């Protein structure tokens, strides 16, 4: 279980996260949604100890984050970052093998080989096993990094927008892999998603972030409701029900989109004319 208690973070003088308290339950898939700049990536980085916490504390399995030895933490928690680029000349297989570093410190044992083989199969990268990373497309590279995080074989898996650059098929495949990890292996997954329908379809709990604060923290069916989404994203959306799950239709034409904002537009026009 991850407990976040009264955490806040500033970049310079700008507060990014303001007094956030949250509990992430073990063995569940939690999705973090919210508008740009709401602090989701910063939040994830703080849990993964990639950026320091300015105030408050974070407890992982009951132990304060700053008391964890980094190597032990790496065996317990793995994080996938938003931007994945590669300058080194390494093959797909070598990248996946990096995921085993906290456990094996560079050597490859039989369990490692098995995990790598599994990951390659799951991600559909078997034929690219020995290809160099700069010969791959963006989506393939993204899948490789996800594979590296999977090979790290940790209890907690943190993913920052993993479905970027992925086509529908692989988007769905990754979400199914994550669901398998949660349902069959009891892992805990925290995932930042921009497409809230993926969150609606696959997440157990959804946490909404707005302006550095927790806007809502509830089961997915309660979060994907019109008043909640409308206020969280400042839009006028439509909620539909399908297969006992709520989904959000937000594809609007100009008239629909600006109608919602017509009040604000009028204010701006008035201010400009004055």
């Amino acid at each position, binding site marked *: 279980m991850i407990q976040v208690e009264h955490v806040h973070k500033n970049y310079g003088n700008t507060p990014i996260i303001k007094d956030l308290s949250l509990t992430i339950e073990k063995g569940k898939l939690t999705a973090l949604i919210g508008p740009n700049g709401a602090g989701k990536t910063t939040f994830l980085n703080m849990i993964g100890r990639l950026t320091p916490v300015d105030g408050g504390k974070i407890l992982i399995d009951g132990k304060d984050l700053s008391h964890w030895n980094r190597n*032990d933490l790496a065996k317990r928690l793995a994080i996938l*970052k938003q931007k994945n680029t590669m*300058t080194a000349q390494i093959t797909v297989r070598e990248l996946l093998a990096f995921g085993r570093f906290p456990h094996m410190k560079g050597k490859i044992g039989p369990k490692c080989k098995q995990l790598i083989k599994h990951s390659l199969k799951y991600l559909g990268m078997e034929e690219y096993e020995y290809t160099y990373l700069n010969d791959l497309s963006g989506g393939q590279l993204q899948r490789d990094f996800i594979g590296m995080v999977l090979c790290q074989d940790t209890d907690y898996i943190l993913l920052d927008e993993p479905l970027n650059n992925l086509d529908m098929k692989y988007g769905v495949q990754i979400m199914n892999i994550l669901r398998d990890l949660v349902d069959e292996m009891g892992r805990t997954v925290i995932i930042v998603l921009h497409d809230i329908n993926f969150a609606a379809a696959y997440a157990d709990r959804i946490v909404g972030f707005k302006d550095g604060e927790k806007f809502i923290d509830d089961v997915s069916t309660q979060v994907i409701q019109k008043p909640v989404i409308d206020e969280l994203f400042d839009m006028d959306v439509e909620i539909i029900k399908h297969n006992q799950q709520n989904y959000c239709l937000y594809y609007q034409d100009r008239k629909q989109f600006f109608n919602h904002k017509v009040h604000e537009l009028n204010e701006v026009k008035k201010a400009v004319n004055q």
Partner: protein
Amino acid sequence: MTNKKKNSLYLGLLIFLSIISGALYLFINIRGNWEFALYLRLPKLMAFFIVAICISFATIPFQTMTENHLLSPNIIGIDSLYTFFQTASVFYFSSHSIINTNSIVNFIVSTVLVLGASIGLFYLFFKKFPNQIYLMLLFGVTLGTLVNSLNQFLQVVIDPNEYTVVLSRTLTSFNQINVHLIGLTFFVATPCILYLFAKSKVLDVIHLGRDYARSLGIEVDQEYLKFFVMISILTAISTSLVGPVSFFRLFRCKCLLSFIFYL
């Protein structure tokens, strides 16, 4: 052929070529007494060898830490500092003082000074202003220009005879290398090189970037500091041995010229 096999083949070929070049350098065109020729050539070859290894072992971690494959540690201006120390020591202590007459004392003192300065510079560019490659480059270039001007000024002021001592130290030269210095360099370089070899796996992971390295359990800041110290030591001793070796330009040129000349 898989990439791995290709790489092994290239590596083997390069090793083979360097052994052949070394052998050619030692044995080609010896007119007369073999013992005498080898006595002159062997120290030079060993100096090539050590300097090449020191510079490569210093450059790879540096390139990994700066995430840039075109730079070398000299960019921070270490060579200019070395030149400045040599000029200043002749100016202040005269060419008769022990620093300038005893090669070993000079070697140790200049290594220690360059080491201290480069650790300071690394601290500046990796801790205080991290990820500012252009600032680092600008600093190195500016420092180089500053030292050049200072040298020229001191050249005008110093007695020309004394200045030849400065010149002999600051122009890169593989001739007249003190054998004791080579031994000292080996002695200092070997533990550093072995340490870097042992840390090579860590360096591989750092190649993924600071954040992924942290995620995989590496205390990045501490490792960076350890690598700084190693890079500083290796660059300092190779500079003190043969003089400033920016990008190994002079060495390559000399190599090429010698080869053409002997043909």
